[in-house]
């Protein structure tokens, strides 16, 4: 029974971790794409 309750806690914790980590990673990827484009455009000038 204890393990069942722990599984619920673990599920909630992992969901929060995955959502926040996913958010941070998506911002990082978008920032990287923009900076790559910026460097490419700057080098063409």
């Amino acid at each position, binding site marked *: *029974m*204890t393990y*069942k*309750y*722990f599984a*619920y*806690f673990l*599920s*909630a*914790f992992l*969901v*929060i971790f995955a*959502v*926040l980590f996913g*958010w*941070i990673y998506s*911002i990082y990827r*978008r*920032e*990287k794409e*923009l*900076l790559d*484009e*910026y460097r490419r*455009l700057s080098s063409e000038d």
Partner: protein
Amino acid sequence: MMESFYSKAGNRIMAIAISVLWLVVLYLVLAVTRIDPDQQMAQKIFYYHVPSAWTAGIAFLAVAVSGGFYLFTQNEKWDHLGLASAELGTLFCALVLITGPIWAKPIWGEPWSWEPRLTTVLIMFLIYIGYFLLRQFGEIGERTRRVSAVIGIAAFVNVPIIYVSVKFWSAEAQLHPQPGMSQQPADVYWTFILSLITFTLLFVHLLRNRLHLLKLQSQMSRMRDDI
């Protein structure tokens, strides 16, 4: 000169400090706080569920305040602050709506109940889905930004309603727990406070990160136009 958010030492230090606080909270939750005899480990979801709701409330307040400033000044930076806060508020609101049913399933026997607190939080989430539909599909420009600001201000009315919903409606309609934190034992109280601080710092950090990206997007947009 455009540079990465984490190229600044202060932002890296902040990210490390928040990660350490996150681990300390996890340790306190797992190893120090008492286990509720009825709800056992499921009760500990509370240490993440309530701070998520608190953070969503702060974010929605930021949307309303920045919306007000935008309507007065028409300055793009207030629109950026409103958009970034709205995104993060909705993200944390989604976490509330996910972790709540995970807790409710073993405790209530069902993941959802149409009682006042849950229903008002869901309404808040749906209002912000509408906000993003407007931002995504509305015409690009001043009008959409102004309407978004007005929606952000109007939507904030729901935050105090969510807060008082456990008292506003009759006791028979209530199912959501209403713990008085000041009466909680020290281990529960201080772990909860530390979790609140961690989530608040995380929100501020994520908000600054998102604002940095919006600034980069604006700069790039102008650069493309110039070319």
